[in-house]
């Protein structure tokens, strides 16, 4: 704790900068967590492979932009398109055959896919770190330095989340998705076709992974273990917010990103994650249904 105190007293600006960076990171993490949570809410399956799908989109954006010279927006669109295809593909090829299997098998099947994607990426593209180089300035706000790329990523993430909210609340299919996540059996009785809703949900989830990929590639370099680096924290956020609870996931993203960011500055990157995970474990015991679960 002495490190933290020391920082507060002697270098509050550094701490404020870390907090701001945490906030900006939280936006993108929230996007990933919402995508994963949407799928969980509807299908009751945790896609362990989710962030690795985003990783594949990141690679696509990297190659189209950096190697083939596409404009970034076109690359991002391609990445989102790939995300949609991957989402539908995972659902049709892997989830559909085991929809009625024990939850453990469903978890493990997507875990096997994770191994596959991670190793295939190592095989095809080696373990090199690749990044899309943007010449974006670093802006100074009251003595704090903030990367412009992060700021853009945050703003876009918020815009997409608002869009997701409108989609879920204002459209027919969005309402159907919310209905399924509330009561799957009743929805089938009402005459809705569950498989169609599953596919739309998986496609939307995949699209969110694609958007997150586009926002991540301008801040981080992509490598085969990118999914392993961001995957666990994404599940933790979903569980912490309450699996299926979109608002909870949104808030939890910022809690976790702040801990990681501030912990990283005060101690070390690893300790930031250790604290975040430890907090997750403790909160699970206190509020097993997520931080916003209603008391039973």
């Amino acid at each position, binding site marked *: 704790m002495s490190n933290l105190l020391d920082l507060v007293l002697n270098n509050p600006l550094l701490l404020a900068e870390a907090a701001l960076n945490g906030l900006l990171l939280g936006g993108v993490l929230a996007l990933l967590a919402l995508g994963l949570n949407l799928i969980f809410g509807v299908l009751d399956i945790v896609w362990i492979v989710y962030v690795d799908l985003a990783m594949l989109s990141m690679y696509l954006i990297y190659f189209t932009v950096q190697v083939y010279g596409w404009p970034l927006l076109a690359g991002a669109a391609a990445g989102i398109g790939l995300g949609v295809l991957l989402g539908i593909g995972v659902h049709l090829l892997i989830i559909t*055959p*085991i929809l009625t299997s024990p939850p453990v098998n469903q978890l493990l099947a997507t875990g096997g896919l994770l*191994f596959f994607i991670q*190793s295939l990426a190592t095989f095809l593209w080696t373990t090199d770190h690749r990044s899309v180089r943007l010449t974006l300035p670093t802006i100074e706000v009251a003595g704090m330095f903030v990367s412009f790329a992060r700021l853009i990523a945050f703003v876009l993430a918020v815009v997409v989340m608002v869009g997701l909210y409108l989609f879920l609340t204002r459209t027919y299919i969005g309402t159907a998705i919310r209905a399924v996540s509330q009561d799957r059996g009743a929805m089938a009785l009402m005459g809705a076709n569950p498989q169609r809703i599953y596919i739309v949900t998986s496609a939307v989830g995949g699209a969110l992974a694609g958007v997150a990929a586009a926002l991540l590639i301008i801040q981080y370099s992509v490598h085969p273990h990118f999914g392993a680096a961001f995957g666990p924290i994404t599940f933790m956020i979903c569980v912490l917010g309450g699996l299926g609870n979109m608002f909870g996931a949104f808030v939890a993203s910022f809690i976790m990103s702040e801990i990681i960011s501030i912990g990283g500055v005060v101690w070390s990157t690893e300790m930031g994650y*250790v604290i975040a*995970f430890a907090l997750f474990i403790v909160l699970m015991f206190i509020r097993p249904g997520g931080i916003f679960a209603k008391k039973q």
Partner: protein
Amino acid sequence: MTTGRVLAALVLAALGVAPFVPMGGMGEYVIFVMVQVFIWSFIGNAWSLMGRFGLVSLGHGAFLGVGAYTTTLLWNFYGLTPWVGVIVAMAAAVVLALVVAYPCSRFGIVGHYFGLVTLAVGEVIRLLLIAERDWTGGSLGLTLKTAGDASFYAVQYADKRVFYYGAFVVWLLGLWVWHRLDRSMARAAMEAIGEDETAAASVGIHVSRFKLAITSLSAALTAFGGVVYAQYIAYVNPETLAGVGVSLRIVFAVVLGGMYSLLGPTVGTALTISLSEYLRVKFGVHFIGMAETIYGLILVVFIIFLPSGIYGSLRGLLVRRTPARA
């Protein structure tokens, strides 16, 4: 069952003399792979003690890491013999298991949630091992201080055959524990808990006590397996002994073989290790990642089409032809 017993005796005898069978220069390598199969089968077995009752842990790497690092650090820094170190290691793993399992049991964290909590525990241990790099060596890992070619005190032997027999005995011990549990009242109680906790509690089963006991047993044996592995390889690394990667590998091997049968974890581990060794030899360093790519694909296909595992499914076919026992 007599044919089964004869077969088992033959297999055991073959495994017993394997190190002395001339294999034309391949002996060293075969033994190296076999020892790995024994150790990881034992660990898979330890995992399945919990897994078969619905306590699916995705963080057994935590116990593996705690075990391996405890003995290694005690030996490197204090010169404490692993014979004592292993007891400390198992005790540490049990403490960690209780710290996690007690609240989980108390607050009814099961299924997905239990999996994700344990996954977080595995990551915490891995990250702590990396963060405390001053004495754990961080992500570079740690080499055991050598104590000569053959030291009983340090449990270090240059001759791989010593480890072969050691690991062989450890593997048999794991099977024995599984068998004992399978024949006990605890198994019936645990099955009832796995089906429906509330119902189990209503007929007088002490749910928490059984869950904690089985988790502690599994954690202790996993830590033991970690110690054996560390002594054998003489090197510990946070990526190979803790975290999501290794935790999932253990689970996959067991699910592949079949987690509800005695030999399932062994069959699964033997298959996954042989497969990755075969691919590694065939493709070599030119195709880094190819082995795991095929491995991952096969895993997905297996989980979809053979959910009770290879051994489990084969046994299922045999059992269906004979009248059911229970």
